[in-house]
């Protein structure tokens, strides 16, 4: 059995690289991503929810259309409303983001990873890039499908949007981006917490529980603080019309900046901990 061991030993050693190319780290992280079922299932759930839940909500809107007031009909945003499923899909993407790093800790794979790539920042960066690209592409496809399905449903009541209309393409691109940035935020939280259940809890608290708590604060604090919370900022990216009562929300670009800020903060704090702590 040992015969194969020493094959081309000198050859291997003579090809020492003086640096470790980032593309190798990317390739390695891509292999990790695609070789566990949790990645596949999380994406299936997230994209399925985006399409199916959005369609169900569109049907519900159509069924109750006659009960809407005229002003409600005028302010109705058929683009954003056809993509409502992304709010729930975000949870599946968040779980995936946490798992990408927490599963390495729970299984012990992280030590093999760092033995192969001692530059931990490089590992986290490659992980984030692979995850972001795959999430963005798959979510963009499901968002486009959900948009098409939704507009088809809305034709029953004579409303609808098309991609050519102002702001519509932006909302579609931003909706996929909302899911992607949320996933990166979860990856950062997972890196910080290093624990699957803890990371998912942190993500749910930040995205869903915290808005409820802040919303219970006396006005104007509730809206002054509330609009800067991660989920509110993220959803602000996805509106064609600033519809929510009195322009409470940030604008799309403001929302993008704030949501990116949250994700960057989590990744930087998590990444710092990754580098300084023992693996």
């Amino acid at each position, binding site marked *: *059995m*040992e015969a*194969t*061991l*020493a*094959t*081309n*030993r000198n050859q*291997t*050693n003579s*090809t*020492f*690289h*003086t*640096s*470790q*190319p980032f593309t*190798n*780290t990317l*390739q*390695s*992280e891509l*292999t*990790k991503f695609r*070789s*566990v*079922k*949790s990645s596949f299932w999380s994406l299936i759930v997230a994209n399925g929810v985006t399409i199916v839940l959005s369609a169900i909500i569109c049907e519900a809107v159509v069924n109750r259309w006659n009960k809407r007031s005229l002003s409600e009909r005028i302010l109705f945003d058929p683009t954003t409303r056809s993509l409502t499923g992304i709010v729930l899909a975000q949870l599946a993407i968040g779980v995936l983001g946490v798992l990408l790093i927490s*599963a*390495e800790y729970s*299984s*012990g*794979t992280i*030590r*093999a*990873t*760092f*033995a*192969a*790539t*001692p*530059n931990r920042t490089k590992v986290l960066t490659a992980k984030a890039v692979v995850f972001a690209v795959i999430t963005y592409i798959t979510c963009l496809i499901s968002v486009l499908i959900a948009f098409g399905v939704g507009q088809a449903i809305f034709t029953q009541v004579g409303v609808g949007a098309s991609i050519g209309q102002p702001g519509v393409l932006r909302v579609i691109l931003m909706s996929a981006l909302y899911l992607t940035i949320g996933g990166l935020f979860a990856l950062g939280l997972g890196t910080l917490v290093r624990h699957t259940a803890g990371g998912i809890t942190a993500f749910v608290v930040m995205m869903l529980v915290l808005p409820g708590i802040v919303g219970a604060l006396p006005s104007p604090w509730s809206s002054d603080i509330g609009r800067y919370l991660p989920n509110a900022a993220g959803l602000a990216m996805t509106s064609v019309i600033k519809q929510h009562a009195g322009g409470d929300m940030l604008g799309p670009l403001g929302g993008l900046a704030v949501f990116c800020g949250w994700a960057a903060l989590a990744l930087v704090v998590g990444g710092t901990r990754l580098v*300084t702590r*023992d*693996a």
Partner: protein
Amino acid sequence: MIEVRNLSKSFGSTKAVDNMSFEVSPGTVTGFLGPNGAGKSTTMRVIMGLDHPDSGQALIFGKPYSKIANPLHQVGALLDARAFHGGRSAYNHLLFLAQANGIPARRVDEVLETVGLSSVAKKRAGTFSMGMGQRLGIAAALLGNPEILLFDEPINGLDPEGILWVRNLLKSLASEGRTVFVSSHLMSEMAQTADYVVVVGRGRLIDSAPISQFISKSAQRYVVVRSPAIDTLEGLLKQSGADVAQGPDNTLEVTNATCAQVGELAGANSIVLHELYFHEPTLESAYMELTQDDVEFHAKSSNDMTFPADKRN
């Protein structure tokens, strides 16, 4: 070449590694011995750049691990037999490691063949037995054809055939001029495999020496004699100037005398002997003597348990 210099590392108030220094040279199998909690795994993790030391350093070819580009080409390690994702196949586990260091994918097939896991390469590693997990860990260590290999308890969970395989593997790696550093708590196994030992206790270095030199430090060298007339013999031996201690089951342990001297004395006095042999110190007995004060978690009366066990051979 691995150099550990004045390494210290604490976890809270526990000093896991306390000012430890030693070197591991190429071309030898160096055993890393010590009781549980002696700091062996921590030291190995610091060498691998996984844990940060409080002070001191661990160098590989003069560099800290973290400064080595594509380290799998230089260092391979089995630190934790189950350090893989249960849902990932053995092949993919090795593939992502190979890719990170620019190692061609065919090398993955080669090492799977070497460790005998080719037939289960595409199966989820979570279904593997402990022994198969060890083999996967060893495959990962061999992946980059490294000059330096670290193995933390590599034979845990292996069957006799697997143990023999690991023993031969370690020896053949060393004979090729590689540096092989292997921790174990199985003394008899280390006695057969290692050329050199680094012995630690409570985070401190106790000794670092060629294995024969280490064993020769043991005081456990004496003549064992068994006789139905043990009391008479004891008196005679003491008169002749030997140091005599009572052993179990009508035996005496005699120092300062050879087997020949004891036998001749008995013959001259017509004393029947049932047994007469020279007790050689073993790696285990030398280790027990030297680490006695350094075992963190003593079982009560562990001394009574361990030394009689030696006498079976």
